[in-house]
């Protein structure tokens, strides 16, 4: 099943590289929600996240012919573009969202039972606020590893850091997050 899916994606990618827009459209459908989420959690503003997500896929489409030169899986390539768009966004923009404000998108997240809904929402908000207090590279690795579910290898490909550095960074980021949460409690 996984091989089938991989083969299908490979075919779509080959067609997209040949300039077939519909093939790229299918890849867009698959990856756009993930990329949007990743960008949104970095910039915390829906409109900005939408704009950056659009730019990521536009860049990808315009440079799809150079994709093979990068030697990366498609997802890693897209995350890498997104990551650099966000870095560029923070470098140039003035109106950065306040870390004290929790976006409606976070507050509106549905819960899956277990605890009371209110408790879960409060926990989600607490974790979100703690996350936003972390340095940018700590936020990034936590989002990639635990929200996006990327492997250390993929994170390594996206960030350009070696495996060991990724593991160390992840450890430190989680420790820092826990520390921030403990201080808030």
């Amino acid at each position, binding site marked *: 099943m996984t091989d089938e899916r991989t083969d299908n994606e490979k075919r779509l990618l080959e067609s997209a590289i040949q300039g077939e827009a519909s093939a*790229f459209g299918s890849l867009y459908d698959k990856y756009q929600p993930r990329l949007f989420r990743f960008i949104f959690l970095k910039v915390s503003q829906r409109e900005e996240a939408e704009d950056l997500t659009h730019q990521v896929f536009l860049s990808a489409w315009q440079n799809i012919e150079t994709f093979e030169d990068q030697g990366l899986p498609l997802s890693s390539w897209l995350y890498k573009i997104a990551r650099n768009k966000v870095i560029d966004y923070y470098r140039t923009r003035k109106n950065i969202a306040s870390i004290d404000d929790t976006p409606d998108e976070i507050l509106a997240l549905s*819960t899956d039972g277990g605890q009371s809904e209110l408790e879960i929402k409060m926990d989600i908000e607490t*974790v979100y606020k703690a996350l936003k207090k972390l340095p940018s590279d700590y936020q990034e690795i936590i989002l990639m590893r635990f929200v996006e579910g990327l492997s250390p290898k993929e994170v390594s490909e996206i960030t350009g850091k070696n495996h060991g550095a990724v593991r160390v960074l992840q450890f430190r980021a989680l420790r820092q997050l826990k520390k921030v*949460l403990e201080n808030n409690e």
Partner: protein
Amino acid sequence: MNKKEVVKNLERFRGIRPDKDFSQKSRLAIIQVPFTPTLHEKVTLDAATAGLHAYTVSGLFSTTFRTVMVASATLAVLAAIYFVTVQLSPLFLPGLNQNGIVAEADMINSTINVQLSHLQRFEQTSRESAAALKEITVNNPSHLNETVIKNEQEKINSLVPSSNNVSQDVNNILKAISQ
């Protein structure tokens, strides 16, 4: 909150979704962008992701250098046009008598007109001569008939005294004078 709970809460962020309307519009806008593979200009991954355009060496040649070359060529053409029209034109030579040039041009013009009228007359004459010769050869005109010519000769001879008679008369006159 222990580590497991923290990770579980982080996983709940996966519920964040893009707006469907935005996704559709963005998708449509992107795939409508024409796919134009470039041979020289390549946006490298790092540059593309940083929102910057980077160029390969050949890309640099084909864009910046090409732009400079086109601009230089345009300037050279404009300079050449200026030089030809302004600097080399006789109308702009210093100390030039423009009235004299106009008069000289008129004179040359009238000479050319005279020569042209001569040529036209020569042409007309030669055309008429050719027509006459043609008529002679084709129609065999009556005034060239041998019989007619002979008759005319006889008429003339009858009207004009013969040379013998004239000589006789002259001799008689001379004889009378000498006596």
